[in-house]
């Protein structure tokens, strides 16, 4: 009965008017507390959206990050670099939150060491890569297009075959970036039976 009593007391406190604090204090206090909470939440969210955070796990640092380093998205003439979240986390806030909630599965994987060794990682690589291919296929390669806008492409500056392929398959939306550019930033798993 003690529990029931305390719940009733709490309910009465919450629904009753404030006895000691002024309306102004509660309004402005609530407003400021909201800013602090929201700012803190977003700052923490952005902290998990950095390369440093991603490669603080050896699973990422020793496998996918090591592979990324020699590719064009990491080492290039113009010094523009795509880091992990640029390609793997949506930029829009709602999509980002949705992706972050999915990522709780990755925390589970980290705790139970699902890919804690190179062998385990290679074993699971096809499945994990498959998730990313599916995601990019479903959102029409959104993360690619955050930087590579089809409308802005200068076909005359592209090599002949690149311009030809983009004109034939990308312009009419028959294919999306990931259909042809799999393995652009990481090594590929066994691709036997995977549609090219």
């Amino acid at each position, binding site marked *: 009965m003690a529990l029931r009593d305390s719940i009733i007391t709490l309910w009465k406190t919450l629904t009753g008017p404030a006895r000691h604090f002024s309306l102004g204090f509660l309004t402005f206090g609530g407003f400021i507390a909201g800013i602090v909470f929201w700012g803190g939440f977003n700052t923490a969210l952005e902290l998990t959206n950095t390369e440093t955070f991603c490669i603080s796990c050896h699973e990422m640092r020793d496998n996918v990050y090591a592979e990324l380093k*020699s590719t064009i998205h990491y080492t290039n003439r113009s010094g523009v670099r795509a880091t992990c979240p640029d390609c793997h986390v949506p930029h829009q806030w709602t999509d980002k939150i949705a992706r972050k909630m999915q990522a709780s599965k990755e925390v589970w994987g980290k705790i139970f060491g699902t890919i804690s060794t190179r062998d385990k990682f290679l074993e699971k690589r096809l499945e994990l890569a498959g998730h990313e291919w599916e995601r990019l296929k479903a959102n029409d390669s959104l993360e690619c297009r955050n930087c590579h806008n089809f409308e802005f492409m200068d076909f005359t500056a592209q090599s002949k075959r690149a311009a030809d392929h983009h004109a034939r398959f990308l312009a009419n939306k028959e294919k999306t970036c990931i259909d042809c550019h799999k*393995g652009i930033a990481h090594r590929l798993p066994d691709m036997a039976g995977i549609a090219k």
Partner: protein
Amino acid sequence: MRHQDRQGLSARAVLLACAAVLATALAAGSVIAADTTATLRKDGISSQKAPPPIARVENRDLKRARNYPEQPPTIPHQIRDYQIDRNVNKCLTCHSRTAVEQSQAPMVSVTHFMDRDGQVRGAVSPRRYFCLQCHVPQTDAKPLVGNTFTDVDAVIQEAVPGRKEN
């Protein structure tokens, strides 16, 4: 007695070794001093030349002439980060028999499907799987040495002046 002998021998060996080292050092010294060694660095052995800038890979997608009929065609485009291992062969995503309809790239020739007995198989033979063993991209680097290669047509033309060229 034996012990003495061994000592005498080893002393002689040391003396010989010293002489050899001295002779080599002297010879090397004279070469370095003369600086006449022919090297591809185009500079003396004792100097550290600034390395040339890294050559750029040609990416024009234009077929190049072959210098002789059996020459593997050179790759007319960039192949940076192309993965060729037991998991995947990036070249074949465009040049395989089934991919050329979409890619309009030249198909790997039928010789690549032959086993060592000349029997044509269903897929590219494992001994022809690693494209870069024969096919290579070209850069704009200047040749370090000249060569006197003459095309076979020119050779025949010279030997048989009246013969028509193909």
